[in-house]
Every structure is written in C-alpha cells, then in structure tokens.
C-alpha cells in the first residue's frame, strides 16, 4: 500500500462515526486533564486506559492518541495563563506565553498555541506517514539478535537522555525489567516472584503500575503544589486573533519547530521536552525578533508548541514500527495494543494496516478537533483552572479507584495500586524518575524473549550480538550514548559545583 492510498484508506477508517466519537472524547478528556497543573499526559493516559479495553483496537488507539496530544495541548493553557506548566514539555511555552498573558495578550497567545500545535501536528503526521513504512520494511529483516539490540538501545536512550541522573535512570529501567519478570514464565510455565499470590500469576497489570506511579504518585505531589486554592486569572483573554503581522511572524517558527520536533520525537528517549527546548534555542538564534524572547515574543510561543506537538506524533514511529517506545507514554500505547492482542513491530503495517493508517489519519482529525474545541472552549478551561483543587483531587482519587477496580472487580488491584502509588511518590522524593521504570516494565518480557531466542539460535554464543552487522552497530551506538550521557552528566555536575564555589 503506497502512502497516498494508505492515507486515503486511513481517512475512511478515522471518519467512521465511532472512531470520530472516541477521537473527540480522547481530545476533550486529554485537554481537560492536561489543563490541571501538575498532572501530565502520563497520568491522563493511565486514567483513560481501562476505558479503552472495551473498545475496538483502532478506536482504543485513536482515543489514547487523542488523550496524549490533548493533554500536551492542555498543558500549554496552564503555562500561558498561570506560568505553571501543565506538562513538562510545555514549560518552554511559559517563557514567552506568560509575559504575553501579563501584557493582556493571553487570548492571542492561546490562539497562537492552538495554531502552532495544529501546524506542528500536521508536519509530524506527514513525517510519520512517509518514514514509518520505510522503517518497518527495514525492520522486517530483523532477527532476535537485532531486536534485542534495538530494545537495548531504546532502553538506554530513554533512561540516559531523560531528565535527572543517567545512573538513576538506568537503575529505574533495570528495576522495570525485573518487575516485568513477575508472573508465569511463558517459556517454562514456572511461577516467578508471585509469592503464592494467585492474582500475580499473570504478572502485574500495566494499568496498575502506570496508575500507581503516575496517577497516585503525581496526585500526592500536586496537592501541595496547588494548595494555594483557586488560580486567579485577572488576565484579559477575550482578544483572540493575532494581527496579520503576527500571523506572518509565526509562520516560519511553526515550520522550523515542526521540523525539529519531528526529528526529536522519532528518536527514542528525547521526546517533546527536548524537542521544545532545542526548537526554542534554535529560534532564539535565527529570529529577527530575538531581543523580545523571554519578554513575550509570539514566536517564543509558536515554536515550542509546534515542536512539542510534532514530536508527539512522530514518537509513534519507533513505537509502532519497531515496537520500541521512546517514552513512557509510548510504552503505555504499546501496552494497550498488547492488551488487544496486537504486537507492535514491522508486521503491524502489514497485518493491521487499518489500525496504522487509521491512526495517522486520526492525527489530522484530532488536531482539527483540538483547534475547533479549544477556540470556543477556552473559557471553560479557564473556569476549570479556577475550581479550587481541594474539590478536584478527592474526585480524581475516586476516578482512579473506579478505573482500577473496574479492571477485574478485584480489590487486590487497589492495594497493588496503593503500593505503586507510594513507590512513585518515594521515587520522586529520592530523585528517581518513574518513567524509565515503566518503559523497562513494558519492554522487559520482549527483551527476555529475544535474548533467549538469540542465545538458542547462536548455540549459546553471546558474541553474536557484536558479530552481526546491524546488532553490532546498534550495540556500539548504545555504548557511545551511555558514555556520552554519563560524561555530560559529570560535566554538568562539575560546572554547577564550580558555579556554587564562585557564588
């Protein structure tokens, strides 16, 4: 199926009434949750995940994708209006979005953010439609050795390049790999680390791990962060449309942000935050209006929003074609597909072309919905931000309980969520990132399976990972990445120590 035929077919799938409905629900709920300060797209997807089990795989994926980019867009609303990033990737938008709001240009900043998100999303969609089939065709030649090496690279990239210490990131990935071994070993049928608990025979549910680490963990953190009560916005957001000159000024940044975001989104481990930051830095260098950056430059809102949204779309490329998620949100997407019996990887484009192209086309519809929804609904989101958080968080905790309990109608799942929720909070306290743990947890069983197969086929010769050209190259890239991230972390630490000494 060539790209245009595939996309046309995908449009027909995405335009089916039920997919349109779930796309709308996903975008709406994603924006709703993303607007709440401190609750990001991970928590949003975790909360929605149980609902998608009852849907067809395509509808489920379309809805999850809608929640994902809806939450990313919702995050920028809190950034612009209150200088509180709803999601980490929208923190860059605060730099110019909030000063614009203080100048009484909040409406224009929100409109720019919506248009730039749409533009970036479209660029990301085109990149995905063009690149994914080629990558999938290449990956069809992969054997277990190559798969093991790709997964290893994905894990190291996701942990080492993420925020915080690379050593801690890798430790979290390994802890996730270990958690993934709990349950019955599919090769031998032996029980592992179940402690005789029958509910653990099938392993720990992805939803429980995600809902605990991100839903409950983030909720505990967010209570104090939002303890000041309602967020008052005395900002005029009624003037909405930018002038012709402003429209002209944001056109270039949207294209540049979209291109940079597409590149970083497709790389495992970097994601939207890095994409937004790099795009902002590049724009600051090339813009004619660079002196205004940080003081309310409209380009400073357009470029990170475009980069952020295009990265959101292209993050699906390695996830769907290789089965290797670049971020924790993508790990959840893989988990959701596997729950529906679909194994992400190069065969997905052949065996489930409907799903792949339907998803690509749903990006167009979802981004249009995002645009259409957010321009008239901006007043609703602002009002939502004004509801005191003391009313919101007890409601959210009930929704988490209901989502978990409805999985199996078993209270054991609630207790397990409580354990993971506490673990998630303590991890933040100990400065460990929970996201790499989730990626390791999802990829662990796949990694173990490929390792066992590779060792069996090579008759126990572990050098096969280095002697086969593709896997050897990937392992070398992994080692280089690891060395680079450790060296740059040590350098950053030395710089901050030197700065401390000087001050």
């Amino acid at each position, binding site marked *: 199926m060539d790209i245009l035929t595939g996309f046309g077919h995908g449009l027909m799938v995405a335009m089916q009434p039920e997919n349109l409905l779930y796309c709308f629900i996903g975008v709406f709920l994603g924006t709703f949750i993303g607007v709440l300060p401190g609750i990001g797209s991970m928590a949003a997807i975790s909360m929605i995940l149980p609902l998608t089990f009852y849907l067809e795989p395509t509808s489920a994926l379309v809805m999850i994708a809608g929640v994902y980019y809806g939450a990313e867009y919702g995050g920028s609303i809190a950034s612009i209006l209150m200088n509180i990033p709803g999601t980490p990737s929208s923190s860059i938008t605060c730099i110019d979005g909030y000063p614009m709001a203080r100048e009484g240009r909040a409406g224009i900043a929100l409109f720019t953010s919506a248009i730039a998100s749409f533009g970036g999303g479209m660029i990301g969609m085109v990149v995905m439609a063009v690149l994914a089939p080629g990558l999938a065709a290449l990956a069809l030649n992969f054997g277990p050795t190559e798969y093991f090496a790709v997964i290893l690279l994905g894990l190291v990239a996701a942990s080492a390049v993420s925020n915080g*210490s690379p*050593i*801690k990131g890798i*430790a979290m990935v*390994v*802890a996730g*790999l*270990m958690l993934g*071994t709990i349950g019955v*070993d599919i*090769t*031998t049928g*032996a029980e*592992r*680390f179940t402690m005789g608990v029958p509910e653990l025979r099938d392993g720990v549910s992805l939803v429980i791990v995600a809902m605990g680490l991100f839903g*409950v963990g983030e*909720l*505990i*953190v967010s*209570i*104090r962060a939002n303890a000041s*009560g309602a967020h008052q916005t005395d900002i005029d957001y009624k003037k909405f449309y930018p002038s012709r000159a402003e429209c002209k000024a944001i056109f270039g940044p949207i294209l540049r942000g979209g291109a940079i975001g597409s590149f970083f989104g497709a790389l495992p481990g970097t994601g939207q935050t890095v994409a937004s930051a790099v795009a902002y830095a590049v724009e600051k260098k090339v813009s004619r209006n660079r002196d205004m950056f940080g003081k309310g430059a409209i380009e400073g809102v357009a470029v990170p929003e475009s980069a952020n949204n295009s990265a959101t779309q292209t993050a699906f490329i390695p996830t769907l074609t290789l089965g290797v998620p670049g971020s924790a949100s993508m790990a959840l997407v893989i988990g959701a597909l596997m729950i529906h019996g679909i194994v992400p990887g190069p065969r997905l484009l052949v065996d489930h072309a409907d799903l792949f192209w339907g998803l690509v086309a749903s990006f167009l519809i979802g981004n249009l919905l995002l645009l259409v929804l957010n321009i008239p609904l901006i007043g609703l989101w602002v009002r939502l931000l004004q509801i*005191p958080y*003391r*009313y919101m*968080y*007890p*409601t959210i*905790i*009930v929704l*988490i*309980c*209901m989502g978990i*309990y*409805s999985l199996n*109608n078993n*209270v054991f799942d*609630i*207790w397990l*969520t*409580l354990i993971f*929720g*506490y673990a998630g*909070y*303590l*991890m*933040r*306290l*100990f*400065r*460990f990132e929970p996201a790499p743990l989730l990626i390791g947890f999802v990829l*662990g069983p796949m990694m*173990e399976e490929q*390792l*066992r197969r590779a*060792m*069996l086929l090579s*008759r*126990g010769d*572990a050098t096969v990972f280095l002697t086969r050209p593709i896997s050897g190259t990937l392992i070398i890239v992994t080692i280089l990445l690891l060395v680079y991230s450790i060296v740059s972390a040590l350098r950053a630490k030395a710089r901050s120590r030197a700065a401390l000494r000087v001050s």
Partner: protein
Amino acid sequence: MKDFLLRLRRSDDTARLPHAWLGALGGIALLALSLIFVIGGLRLGVGSPRRLGTGAFPVLTGFALGALSVAVIAMDLRDTSDAERPDWISFAAIGAALAVFAVTVERVGLVPSVLLTVFTASLPDPSLRLTGKLLLGLVVALGCWGLFIGILDLPFRAFKGF
C-alpha cells in the same frame, strides 16, 4: 484540628534533611530489591548459555541493578543539596483513601464507599469544613452512581448490606 494541621504543615516546611540520606536510602532499597531477584533467580535455575533458564534474566538484571545501586549510593552520599520537601499528610490521606475504597466497596456498595473515600482524601485539608467534606463526598458519590451504574451500566452495587 485545623490549627494542628496548619502547625504540622509549617513544621514540615522547616524540616529539611540533606538529600544525601534520602538518596542513599533509595539506593539501599534498590540494592535489597536486586538481592531478592538474584537469590530468587538462582533458586529458579539459570540454565545454560544455550538454553537460558527461568531464573537467568532475573539474575542478570539483579546483578546489574546491584551494581547500579552501589553507584547510586556512592553518588548520593556526596550530594550536598537539600532534600525534597516530603508531604506526609497528603501521602497518608491519599493512601488512606485508597485503603478505605478497597475495604468498603465490596462490603457497603459503591455510593457509601465513594462518600467515605472522598471524605478521607479531603480530611487533612484545613480549608474545607467537615460538612463541606461530607457534602463533596455526597456529590461525587451520586455522580459516580449516575455515571458508572446509570449510564455505563458497570456491574457495581450502589448499596450493599443495608
């Protein structure tokens, strides 16, 4: 009660440990986890290089985590920054709310369980009075009844044992 909670929050604000201790504690927890998996994996059997056994992957990852934990402990013990400010009140309240839901949902039904869960979660909030907390619980409980049982038709009992 309100004064007590406010005082607790204030004293919580001033108690800042160095991060070194907390960080090392996290590393020690990971080390213990790695030991459990190494010992458990060895008991399950690691097999041969050609046919990796059930315990091989847990042992491999356990050793890797053990080494990383030692690095984390060494690194964090040299950290001179202040620890993150823990919010034990919210920690306890959210945990208690989940526990209340787990204990009550099958005994008393969805509506009373949600009411108690919301009440428990909002208990430490000094800005909301007791009646306000109960009212919020009632509103959320009725909302859940309408949404999950009325609209989504999920197999929950609204009331049980009454």
